[in-house]
C-alpha cells in the first residue's frame, strides 16, 4: 500500500484517506463530528419542516438563539429553586435540565408561531419575517441577558459511555463510538432524522405536507386545509430549533453568551439546500460540514505522518489563521457551489415563499 503514497498529487489523496481511516478508528473524530452536527441537523430539520410546507425560513438562527436563552434561564431558575437534587446516573438528568429543555422547545415553538403568523396569516414577505426574527432574537436575548446577568448554571447533560468492549470491536467499533458516546440531545438526532424522513415520504401527513409545499391550490382542491397544515408544520418545526437551542446551553455549554449561535442557523439553512430539502440529505450535509470542522481539530492535535503532514504543518505554520478558518468556511463555499449548480442540482419545493390565498377570499 505504501507505494500509493508516493504517487504525485494522487499520493496526497491516498495519504489523506489513510489518515482518515486511522483517525476515525482511533480518535474521537467521528463522535465529535456527530456532536458538532447536532444543532446544524436539528436546525435543518426545522428548515425542512418549514420549506416542505412552502414557507421560507431564514430565521432558524433567531429561533435557536431564543430557545438557547429561554432554556438556560429556566434551567438556572429551577436549579436555584431545588439545589439539593443529585443528577441521575443516566445522562446526568436533573429536573432543572429537563424543564430547561422543555422551556427551550416551547420558546422555539413560540418564535415559530410568530413566523407562521407573519408568513401565513399576515402574508408578510417570508424573508423579511425571518430577518425580523433574527434581529429581535439577537436584541432581546442580549438585552435580557445583560439585565438579568445570571450568575449560576444548571450544568449540562452527560455523555453516555458505551461499554468498552463495544468500542473495541474491529471494523464496526467506531460506529458504536460515534452514535453512543453522546449526550441525549445529540443521540436523539439520528432518530428524529429517520422518523421525519419516513413520515415525510411514507405517511399521509408527509404526502399532504409535500403537496402543500409544491402546489397548495391543488392540495386545497382535494380538501387539505392549507393554512392549518402550514401553521402546524411551522410550529412543529420550532421543536427542532428549540432542541438545537437546548443543545447549545444545556448539553454543549453550561452558559449563555450573546449571539452564541454563531451562524449555526445559517449553516443549517445551507444544510437544507445541500440536502435537497430532505431530512436525511440535510443530516448528511450537516455531517459533512461539521466533519470539516472536526477534521481541522483532529489534524491540529494529531497531524498526519508523511508528506501530507509535512505539507499541512508547513501551511499551518505560515498561515495559521487562514488554515484554521478554511475548515470553518468550507460549508459556505460548498453551499454556493451547490446553489450555482456546479455539482448536481438542488430544487426547492415549488410553492416555497408564496403566501396562500384561498380562492374566493381576499
Amino acid at each position, binding site marked *: 500500500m505504501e507505494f500509493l503514497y508516493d504517487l504525485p498529487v494522487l499520493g496526497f489523496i491516498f495519504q489523506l484517506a489513510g489518515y482518515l481511516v486511522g483517525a476515525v478508528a482511533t480518535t474521537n473524530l467521528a463522535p465529535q463530528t456527530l456532536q458538532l452536527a447536532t444543532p446544524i441537523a436539528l436546525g435543518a430539520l426545522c428548515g425542512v419542516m418549514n*420549506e416542505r410546507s412552502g414557507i*421560507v425560513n*431564514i430565521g432558524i438562527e433567531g429561533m435557536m438563539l431564543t430557545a438557547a436563552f429561554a432554556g438556560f434561564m429556566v434551567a438556572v431558575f429551577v436549579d436555584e429553586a431545588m439545589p439539593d437534587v443529585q443528577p441521575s446516573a443516566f445522562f446526568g438528568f436533573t429536573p432543572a435540565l429537563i424543564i430547561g429543555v422543555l422551556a427551550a422547545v416551547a420558546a422555539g415553538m413560540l418564535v415559530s408561531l410568530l413566523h407562521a403568523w*407573519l408568513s401565513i396569516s*399576515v*402574508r*408578510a*414577505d*417570508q*424573508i*423579511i*419575517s425571518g*430577518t*425580523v426574527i*433574527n*434581529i*429581535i432574537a*439577537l*436584541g*432581546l436575548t*442580549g*438585552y*435580557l441577558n*445583560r*439585565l*438579568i446577568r445570571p450568575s449560576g448554571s444548571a450544568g449540562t447533560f452527560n455523555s453516555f459511555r458505551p461499554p468498552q468492549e463495544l468500542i473495541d470491536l474491529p471494523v464496526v467499533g467506531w460506529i458504536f463510538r460515534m452514535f453512543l458516546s453522546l449526550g441525549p440531545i445529540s443521540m436523539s438526532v439520528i432518530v428524529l432524522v429517520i422518523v421525519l424522513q419516513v413520515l415525510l415520504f411514507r405517511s399521509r401527513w408527509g404526502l399532504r405536507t409535500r403537496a402543500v409545499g409544491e402546489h397548495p391550490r391543488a392540495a386545497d382542491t382535494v380538501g387539505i386545509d392549507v393554512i392549518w397544515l402550514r401553521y402546524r408544520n411551522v410550529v412543529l418545526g420550532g421543536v427542532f430549533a428549540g432542541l438545537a437551542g437546548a443543545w447549545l446551553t444545556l448539553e454543549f455549554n453550561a452558559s449563555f453568551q450573546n449571539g452564541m449561535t454563531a*451562524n449555526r442557523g*445559517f449553516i443549517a*439553512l*445551507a444544510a437544507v*439546500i445541500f440536502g435537497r430539502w430532505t431530512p436525511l440529505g440535510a443530516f448528511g450535509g450537516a455531517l459533512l460540514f461539521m466533519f470539516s470542522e472536526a477534521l481541522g481539530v483532529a489534524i491540529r492535535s494529531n497531524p498526519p505522518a508523511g508528506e501530507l503532514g509535512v505539507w499541512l504543518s508547513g501551511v499551518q505554520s*505560515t*498561515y*495559521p*489563521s*487562514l*488554515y*484554521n*478558518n*478554511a475548515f*470553518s*468556511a468550507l460549508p*459556505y*463555499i460548498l*453551499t*454556493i457551489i*451547490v*446553489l*450555482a*449548480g*456546479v455539482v448536481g*442540482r*438542488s*430544487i*426547492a419545493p*415549488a*410553492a*416555497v*415563499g*408564496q403566501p396562500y390565498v384561498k380562492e374566493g377570499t381576499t
Partner: protein
Amino acid sequence: MSVVRRIWSLSVIPLASIVLALLVGSILIIASSPASQGSLDFFLPIRAYESLFEGATGLSFLNIEDDGVLAFGLSVDVERALRALTSTIVAAAPLILTGLAVGVGFKAGLFNIGGTGQVLVGGFFAALAGAAVADQPVPVAVTLAVLAGAFGGALYGFIPGALKAFTGAHEVVVTIMLNSLAAFAIVGLVNDVFKIPGPTFARTGNIGNAALPILFGRDGSLGVLIALAIVPIAYFLIYRTTLGFEIRTVGANPSAARYAGMSPRWLIVFTLSLCGLFAGLAGTIEILTLGYYPAVFGTTIGFAGITVALLGRSHPFGILFAGILLGGMRAGAPAMQIQADIPIEIIDVIQGLILLFLAAELVIRRLLRIRGESVTPGELQSVSRSYGEGSA
C-alpha cells in the same frame, strides 16, 4: 393627489410602526425594570426615551429633580445640541449607505442580505489601500482609499449578481453564505498576511493621510458628505435615467423587460454590484474613521440596512430620513444606558420591532384603520417567490 397627501400616505405606516415599536419597547422596559431598578417603575420608559432623545439631539424636555420627581421643561444648550446632532448624522451616514444597498436592490426585485459582507470587504480594501498610500498628500490618499473601498464592496456584490444572473443561484442564500465567508477570510488575511508588528491585537497598518478629514464638529467627517451626496445621485440614477428605468422594469416584471429588449441578466449583475458599492462605502467610512482594520471587526450596519430600506420605503430620500432616525437611536443609546441604566441592546429590540410592524402592515392597517400605500415593495414579491428557483 396633492404632494402633502401623497407623502402622508407613504409615511403613515412607517410612522405608525415606529410609534408601536416604541410602545412595545416601553412595555418591555417596564416589565424588566425590577431587574434594572430594583422595583417596578412605570415612568422608566419616559426617562429612557427622553435620555435617548437627548443623546441624539442634545435637547432635553425633562428635568429630574433630586427627589426623583419628573418635571417638564425644554432646555436648549446650543453647543450640546450641535455636538449631539453631529454624532447622530455621523452614526447615520453608514446606515444611509447600507439602506441604499438594500433599497436599490429592492427596486430591481433583488433582496441583498449581503450588506454585512460587502461592508467588511469594502472596509478591508479601504484599509489596505489606505495603508499603502498613507504618506501621499491627503486628497490623493483619501480618494484612492475611498475608491478602493467602493471597488471592494462592488466586487463582493458582483459575485452574487453574476451567480444569480448566469447560474440562477438565489441571491438571498448566496449573500448569507458570502457574509460568513468574508468574515472568515478577512480574519485569516489580517492575522496571517497584513498584520503589523507593534499593537497588542492583530490589525492592519495605519492609514495615515487616508483618514477621512474632519469637516465640522468633533467627528463630522467627509464620510457624512459622501453619504449625503450619494442619496440624490441614487435618486437621479433610479428615477431619472434610462438605466434606472430598466432596473425598475426588471424589478416590476422581468419578462416584460426581456421583451422590451433589456438584458435582465446584466441589469441584475449591475444592480447587485451597485448595492455592494454602497455597502462597501459604508464599510469604508467606518474603517477610514477608525484608522485601521482590526482582525475581528463586528458590525451590525449591514443588517440594519434592511430596516432602513423598508422604513424608507426603498426610496433614496425615505432612506435618508430612516437612516437619520436609526442613526439618532444609535447615537443616543449610550446616554440612555448611563442615565436610565437600560442596556444598549434595547435599541436592537426596537429596531427589530419596527421591522416587525412594517412586515405586519396588513394588521396595522386594520388595527388603526389607515389607508396608506404598502410598505413592502411590490418588486419584493418576486424575490421570496423565486426563492425556490435556485439552479432549477
